């Protein structure tokens, strides 16, 4: 009973809030705060049920699969919901001030539309993480994509509009690839339920093609190298809290579905060769993204390319988690890494927003003398950087450690090399920014003061990115609930 309400409120709370924020444009922030409260409560209820009673299933409308839609909450889903909630909460606090303080005349307009779009994004994410139905996942993907694109375009400048347009094309085409895959799956198995598919799916040409289509679409949405081309401009040109949401959560949505497909519904098709391909692409993403981040002229572009790189780590989960031996190590490692990256990236983009606000630009080479004035923001960036590099005891470290251990256990040493090189590259680009904080510039211009709530929210996320590593045992335990293999 409690779980039912949790399911309902987690999805409908933000959804109705989005509608209300649209009807009452001046009340957006209050509505979002209320939604944050409701979802937090619902999440607590849900996590208690999951810890106590294992995987929770809600048969929507009282019809069970295959005819109806099942919602399902296992450890993975609950973890993703938690990350979503934390980051959305931070973004809510941050944005309450961010949009009000923008320098241009359009800011009031932006604030009005930010809230409903943001709440839609939130609802879409929650719905996505709870869904156990691949067609329903398609609908949530579309909700997510539309909200993300509209939020990018909200920045309103030329570059933002162009990147939003490109993002929309990629997103829509990717959704259609996914949907075509769903059609083939339905034609073959006569169900779109993840659990039923796990029992019904047998390797064969149709499912191979279907899965390839769905995977292709999702990889584009998850911006895995070489399909990442749309991400850096989109994430770099969006308003700061939006960039945070996109990098921390939106790309993870697609990744989450990939996990559900390859490790649950179609686990019988998950062969080592495929897994190695995923891992290879992930490795390429790590190297390519990091190398590009090193040469970006703008802070937000750097952070965006860092996202391309860090997403690569998530895909190392495929070759590592598929094996029985040490599989769970990699599984929990990859997902803890996901949470770590989400928090760290949020902190980084929010900080970038602060710096942009203070300096009026984010050209890295001209940031000397500006960053040491807002020390809290710099501190936040540094802490987030620690997690990104994977220095202990941050959560990034916890994730990388588990992935490292898994590769060592399985003797797949090549991933170890990639991860270590990736860490060093991450250190290089993070330090490229942090060094500016210590540069003494004699005639530094007085920066625009940053509202405290914006600084402290960024810092809180950074602290979370580090501190989460100290309690990483808890998510690892949580992930055991409903883990796709015995």
């Amino acid at each position: 009973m409690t779980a039912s309400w949790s399911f309902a409120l987690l999805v409908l709370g933000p959804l109705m809030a989005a509608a209300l924020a649209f009807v009452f444009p001046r009340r957006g922030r209050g509505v979002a705060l209320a939604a944050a409260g409701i979802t937090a409560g619902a999440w607590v209820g849900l996590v208690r049920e999951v810890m106590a009673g294992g995987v929770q299933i809600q048969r929507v409308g009282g019809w069970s699969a295959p005819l109806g839609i099942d919602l399902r909450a296992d450890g993975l889903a609950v973890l993703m919901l938690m990350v979503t909630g934390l980051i959305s909460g931070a973004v809510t606090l941050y944005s309450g001030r961010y949009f009000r303080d923008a320098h241009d005349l359009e800011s009031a307009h932006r604030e009005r539309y930010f809230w409903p779009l943001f709440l839609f994004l939130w609802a879409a994410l929650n719905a996505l993480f709870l869904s156990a139905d691949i067609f329903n996942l398609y609908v949530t993907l579309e909700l997510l994509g539309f909200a993300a694109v509209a939020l990018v375009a909200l920045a309103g400048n030329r570059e933002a509009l162009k990147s939003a347009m490109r993002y929309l094309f990629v997103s829509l085409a990717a959704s259609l690839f996914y949907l075509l895959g769903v059609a083939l799956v339905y034609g073959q198995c006569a169900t779109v339920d993840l659990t039923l598919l796990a029992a019904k799916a047998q390797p064969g040409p149709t499912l191979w093609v279907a899965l390839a289509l769905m995977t292709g679409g999702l990889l584009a949405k998850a911006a895995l190298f070489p399909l990442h081309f749309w991400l850096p401009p989109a994430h770099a040109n969006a308003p700061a809290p939006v960039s945070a949401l996109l990098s921390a959560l939106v790309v993870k949505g697609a990744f989450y579905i990939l996990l559900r497909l390859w490790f649950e519904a179609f686990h019988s098709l998950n062969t080592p060769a495929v897994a190695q391909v995923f891992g290879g692409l992930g490795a390429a993403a790590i190297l390519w993204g990091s190398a590009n981040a090193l040469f970006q002229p703008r802070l937000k572009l750097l952070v965006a390319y860092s996202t391309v790189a860090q997403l690569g780590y998530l895909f190392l989960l495929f070759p590592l988690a598929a094996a029985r031996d040490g599989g769970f190590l990699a599984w929990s490692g990859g997902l803890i890494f996901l949470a770590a990256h989400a928090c760290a990236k949020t902190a980084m983009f929010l900080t970038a927003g602060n710096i942009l606000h203070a300096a009026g630009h984010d050209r890295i080479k001209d940031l000397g003398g500006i960053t040491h004035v807002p020390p809290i923001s710099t501190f936040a960036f540094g802490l987030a950087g620690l997690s990104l590099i994977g220095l202990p005891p941050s959560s990034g470290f916890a994730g990388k450690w588990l992935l490292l251990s898994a590769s060592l256990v399985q003797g797949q040493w090549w991933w170890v090399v990639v991860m270590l090189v990736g860490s060093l590259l991450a250190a290089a680009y993070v330090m490229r920014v942090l060094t500016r904080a210590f540069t003494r510039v004699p005639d530094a211009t007085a920066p625009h003061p940053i509202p405290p709530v914006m600084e402290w929210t960024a810092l809180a996320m950074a602290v979370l990115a580090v501190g989460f590593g100290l309690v990483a045992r808890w998510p690892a335990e949580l992930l055991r609930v409903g883990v796709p293999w015995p």
Partner: protein
Amino acid sequence: MDREIAMMSHVFDWILVLLVLALAWRSLNDCDLFRGVIQFIALGLLLAVAWLRLRAPDVALAEAAVGSGLTGALILSALVRMRQRERRGVPASASSDTSRTLQSGTSNRSRVLIGALSLALLTALGWAVFRFSAQSSGLAVESLAKLPESGVTNPVTAVLLNFRAYDTLLEIGVLLLAIVGVWALRRGERPGDDLRERPLLMSLLRLLLPVLVLAAGYLLWIGASAPGGAFQGGALLAGALVLGLLAGLAGRFLRRERLLRTGLTLGVLVFAAAGLLALWRTGGLLQYPAGQGGAWILVIEAAALISIGLTLGLLYLGGRPEEEK
């Protein structure tokens, strides 16, 4: 006789499919963009025929109204707007002639590459679909078995608003999101031509609009037992709204911002509230109390109809109707 009918329908299938493919190709690759758009609209109509052929009258209705009609109107009006802006704009950026940009941009080599990729895609898909067994009832049996419990007799409506109502709830959310996204982008412009100078059209609209509203209501009602429902009705309503907008008949309505916004969100709010209410009453999200399915569905659909009609109609403006204060 049966053989001949089968033969004829076979020929019909081939003609239909070839026409569809030819139109699809031409509509996207015709060097005159306007002609392309027209062919695109025609493609939508042909597809509606194909849907009928595939025993999907509900979809055919929606395709004709939404897929072909509204989408076509949207694209046409966007084309007109773009061309007007181009005419106003500086001719220096001459590369952007809307009507003839076919050869610009993509090099021949990448064309060949993409072509090869698409062919590979087609081959893979063809390989996949040829492995399907000729017959599979999918979920037809299950849905028909559960149909009496759903509260309606049209199986598609039962799926949309009962068995898989949750999808539909989110989909109504997508609709609202689309309009919010569009409004966030820009202020809409009225269509360039003032139709008030065309009395004949005006009188037609005066006649037509009330009938369209009635028809929308009728589709909503009939959806419970026959092809139709909130989407098809909503599409009609949207059509009526677009015509009204074109004729400048909805100006005063558009200025009532709060009312508009309420109308747009009505579907989501009522649907979600119904879901929660059902949860409270029966303990299951969107699980309607036994025997009351029909009534619940009707209420939800009515709210959805209004929102769908408003949303799809207002999408036509390409932006929010008025600048807020």
